[in-house]
């Protein structure tokens, strides 16, 4: 099994911690005044979705999970699960929405994603770097200071709210980064 140093873990790593698989969702450098360096990590249990924080020594050895991935299509949200299907075998898998960490707003029917597996269990979803979503609600641009190009909130088809430029209208399709949810560009087709 691959290992990683406490000082090198980053968001997106899957690790084995106290016998359970965890997704690292956030890391922060900590230096307690007069001491050696540490990394404070936010962890999400890849089975239950429960979160906890743990502070690792930078020099500590952590086991990285042997995660495999398969390309699948998103079908629908079913209560607390997101359901995906393998387009070749038609096999369906469910992933707890908690494990999507708020990124379920990027899922549109038939979008292709990678489902991550650990010991045959689906433990997460890797989204494309950006997704295209249709704007379903946007206020008309007010006559503001356009030189400074301020932004306004717009709602897209999945219910997600994104800060977009003033010229974006209902019906536009926009490209959004899945890491952080930033507006990238208008991609009307």
């Amino acid at each position, binding site marked *: 099994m691959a290992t990683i140093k406490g000082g090198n873990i980053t968001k997106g790593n899957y690790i084995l911690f106290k016998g359970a698989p965890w997704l690292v969702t956030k890391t922060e450098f900590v*230096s307690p*005044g007069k001491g050696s360096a*540490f990394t404070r990590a936010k962890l999400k249990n890849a089975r239950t979705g429960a979160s906890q924080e743990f502070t690792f020594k930078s020099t500590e050895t952590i086991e990285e999970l042997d995660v495999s991935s398969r390309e699948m299509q998103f079908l629908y949200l079913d209560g607390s699960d997101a359901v995906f299907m393998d387009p070749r075998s038609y096999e369906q898998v469910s992933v707890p929405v908690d494990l999507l960490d708020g990124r379920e707003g990027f899922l549109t029917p038939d979008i292709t994603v990678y489902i991550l597996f650990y010991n045959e269990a689906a433990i997460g979803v890797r989204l494309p770097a950006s997704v295209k979503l249709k704007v379903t609600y946007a206020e008309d641009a007010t006559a503001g200071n356009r030189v400074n190009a301020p932004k306004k909130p717009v709602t897209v088809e999945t219910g997600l709210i994104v800060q977009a430029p003033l010229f974006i209208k209902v019906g536009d399709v926009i490209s959004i980064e899945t890491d952080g949810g930033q507006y990238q560009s208008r991609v009307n087709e």
Partner: protein
Amino acid sequence: MQKTWQRLSQQPQLQAPFRVREVVIDTIRGFFKTQDFLEVETPLLVQRPSTETFLDFFGSELRMAEGQRRPGFLTTSPEYAMKKILVAGFPRVFQVCKSFRNGEGRSPKHNPEFTILEWYRTQADYTDIMRDCEELMLELVAAVNEWRGEAVMPDVEPTLQYQGRTYHLNAPWPRLSVAEAFEQFAGIEVEELLDEVALPKRAATKGYQVTDATSWEQAYHQIFLNEVEPALTQFDRPVFLYDYPTSQAALSRRKADDPRFAERFELYLGGIELGNAFSELIDADEQEARLKADLELRRKEQRPPFELDTDFIEALRLGMPPTGGIAVGVDRLVMLLADVPSIKDTLFFPVEDVFDLE
């Protein structure tokens, strides 16, 4: 990724923290000047930096036209120089300046170049500095509220709103010793806490990764960061965590009644460390011995070596009065008072905007 100046041009509401920064620095200056403190400036570039074992430095070189070359380091704190000024005969000094720390990781509370406030009061100890902290914070909150146009209500208890939580600021603030904190939040009694063998063992039984190479310091911090510091976030008031094991307080005076601990405190608000204070160590021999031990530990840890600042030891030998002093992270203060989640929101040019980082 957008630069801060670009985001500011698009979202004028992001300007507020920079206005708050100005209010904070003006108020700090006013606070100390009305109490007859001298504002000083000390070198940021020195040949012999402080001996902090675990801090990384930015190093350069001084080159004279005549051919002399000397190592040059950016200071991690102006502490040594300010203490020399006390010895020179100035009883109260303060400074707001840049300090530099290398080798730190990404964090919303760190930037390699940051603004530090230090003040020193002679004929005083760390409890006087606690009172300074309380008074300064109340003045800062009042000044920022006034800047926001909020009426000052003399009878209303002062509070700070930060990231959806309310902190109560009426003094005196709670004081918790390190020994009490380990006992309350980690279930570790003082004898076990201070024992070089027992503490790593206890860390192992608690489930932390402990090897033969795990030092007392690492076990101490592992427990501190996982059990004690998170408990401090539960307080809805600022907290003084005080009296550190002597090994964790290289520049502070030992407690007269319990030399296992030194008179150091850290100020926490919402779990965020805002400042680090000492009853300053003024015994030249003990200071020299501790700094040499630090340098020896640096050598063992295979960190770049440097020379002891003998000038600092000589100043202590000439005689420094009993003194209380503190270093406060100004960027973190601004972050709290502007109610933003990261010090990067208070910096026009955070490190990510200055260096090409991935």
